């Protein structure tokens, strides 16, 4: 059994500072963060990273975790397709201006583990951080790894996120998953790192935190349900898995197990602990 001690979800529109500041004041005073410092730390980041930081801040705020505990927290970022928009911005420069004209800032931010890195940097987290990309199995993989870390004592708390962006690629792949090949619409911007992104975050732990103790979950994996994916099995609803789990967590009396990508999650209210 592991505990879900905090939840966060956001779409990348709007200002992130309100949430970040709230998290800072409530939980992270030990890190001496200020709004101005946050702005500096996240300059140059695209919507993918920003959405991840926002979702993480909400989950941390929700949990009431202390700065001391947070320092050794693990971070797992799962994504079906990664940050295509930021990557594309760097590649676009190479195509448009020449192979020797890449921007070092864009390249640094196109590193596929950038979201986890910025979350670690903003919240002073020094635990292990893993980023993975595996189409439809991404979130389930992240959940399994978080369970391993908690049960094996790798860390006492894990921030598990799934982050997805809207991109020309995601548009093509959604349609390919439906069995047809379509080109991106003209309204879909190429290489726009500010394009809409979504992020969901769960703060998982092996013990109750001071101000929050939402639910406990047990996870089992079925090999039969995890047959090798078809190459077209990609994204129908990109955030379906974390949203399904989050909905179940918010309605724990439902008592129906949640099945996502071959793993079954049973949820119980914290009251029965």
């Amino acid at each position, binding site marked *: 059994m592991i505990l879900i001690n905090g939840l966060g979800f956001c779409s990348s529109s709007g200002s992130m500072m309100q949430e970040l500041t709230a998290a800072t004041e409530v939980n992270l005073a030990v890190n001496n963060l200020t709004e101005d410092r946050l702005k500096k730390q996240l300059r140059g980041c695209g919507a993918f990273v920003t959405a991840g930081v926002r979702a993480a801040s909400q989950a941390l705020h929700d949990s009431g975790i202390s700065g001391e505990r947070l320092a050794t927290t693990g971070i797992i970022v799962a994504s079906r397709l990664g940050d295509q928009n930021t990557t594309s911005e760097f590649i676009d420069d190479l195509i448009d201006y020449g192979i020797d004209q890449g921007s070092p800032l864009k390249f640094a931010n196109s590193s596929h583990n950038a979201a986890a890195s910025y979350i670690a940097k903003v919240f002073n987290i020094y635990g292990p951080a893993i980023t993975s990309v595996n189409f439809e199995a991404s979130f389930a993989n992240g959940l399994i790894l978080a369970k*391993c870390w908690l049960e094996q004592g790798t860390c006492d708390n894990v921030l598990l996120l799934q982050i997805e962006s809207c991109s020309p690629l995601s548009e093509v792949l959604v349609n390919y998953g439906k069995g047809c090949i379509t080109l991106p619409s003209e309204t879909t911007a190429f290489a726009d790192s500010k394009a809409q992104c979504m992020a969901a975050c769960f703060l998982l732990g092996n013990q109750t935190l001071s101000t929050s103790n939402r639910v406990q979950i047990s996870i089992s994996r079925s090999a039969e349900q995890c047959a090798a994916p078809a190459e077209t099995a990609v994204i129908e609803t990109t955030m379906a898995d974390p949203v399904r789990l989050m909905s179940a967590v918010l309605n724990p009396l439902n008592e129906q197990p949640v099945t996502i990508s071959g793993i079954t999650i049973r949820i119980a209210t914290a009251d029965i602990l």
Partner: protein
Amino acid sequence: MSVCITGMGCLSPAGINCAVTWNGLQGDDAPELTGLSETGQIVFMAPLSPAYDSNGRLHRSVDLLTQALDEALADADLNVISDSSRIGVCIGTTSASFLNDMDFHRKLREHLVDEKSLKRFFSGNPAEYVKKRLALGGPAMTVINACASGADAIGIAMSWLNAGICDIVIAGGADEIHSVSGAGFYSLGVTSQHLCRPFDRDRDGLNLGEGAAVLVLETTESAVRRKRDSGLYVAGYAAAGDARHITQPDPDGCGIERAIRNALNCAGLKTEDIGFINAHGTGTIHNDLAEGHAFARIFADKSPYFSTKGKTGHTLGAAGAIEAVITAIMLRKQQIPGSCRYQHQDPDIPFRPAAAMKITAEYALSTSLAFGGCNSALILKYEPNPGGTKL
């Protein structure tokens, strides 16, 4: 808890397979296959066998991975998999993965995407590719943790095995010489115009390389059941973050120090148990300084350290896996090759890297540092069993 290494495959600029890799690590010469990137930087190529060259049908990283995979499966006597339901796969890769598929991106821009290019795109996720190729029923995870990806893939495999999720995990890393990573490292100004000199006072950057390595990792119960005993084990793993900078490591090496100390704790070892350290040692100013400081604080001058990147180049997401295999080869040989092209001591690094020498070591450490402040440490063990089926 330790997990058994029952098979290894390795393809890098230092050699076409595990058997020849040791010879490829000797001396200060450039590796056999060198060339220039599109930005004019020296790069080291891996000798991909023509039998594995898909001629562009698949990503080159996948071709490299397949060659290393087949070698590892043969070494582990897993050519025929009778029960794949409890076999997982975890592969690290980085900027040369399908996420940076420049041709695909160009086609997207030009509205020329077709089924062929989509199939190629999907085949570029290395863990999913292996899972599909071998029809595995266990979990499949592609790790994109920049240059620590290969080491982290091995660490995740260890977690799955110890959690009882799998009996066997195919773990490793793969990366190719790629336009995007080449242009990116060039833009950062961290590539050398010369052959790299890790830990040397006059080092001026890295040489990119390519390759793949695969380790077949197994629980003790599974290895005993299959009568496989190489005497090699992954004894410990840990990762820790710098939380400092998106590309540069903590100059004091605090992150890699935490990772090493946690890996020692994971393995139940003391610092003096580590017989040698196969360092990340890219040849950049910052990486080598960070590692040099961390090694000095933890080991003083008691454990010889060196880098093999003068012979392999920096193979990015494959590096951690390639260096794990190389570390295992050295443990078996009880020899280390020394740090390629090292001449002058950096006054800011307290202790010199090792020269080539014979050693007596049961445990060895392999370190990986990556963009985003990711640091990983793997500890390998060699305990030869004269009664084992394969030594």
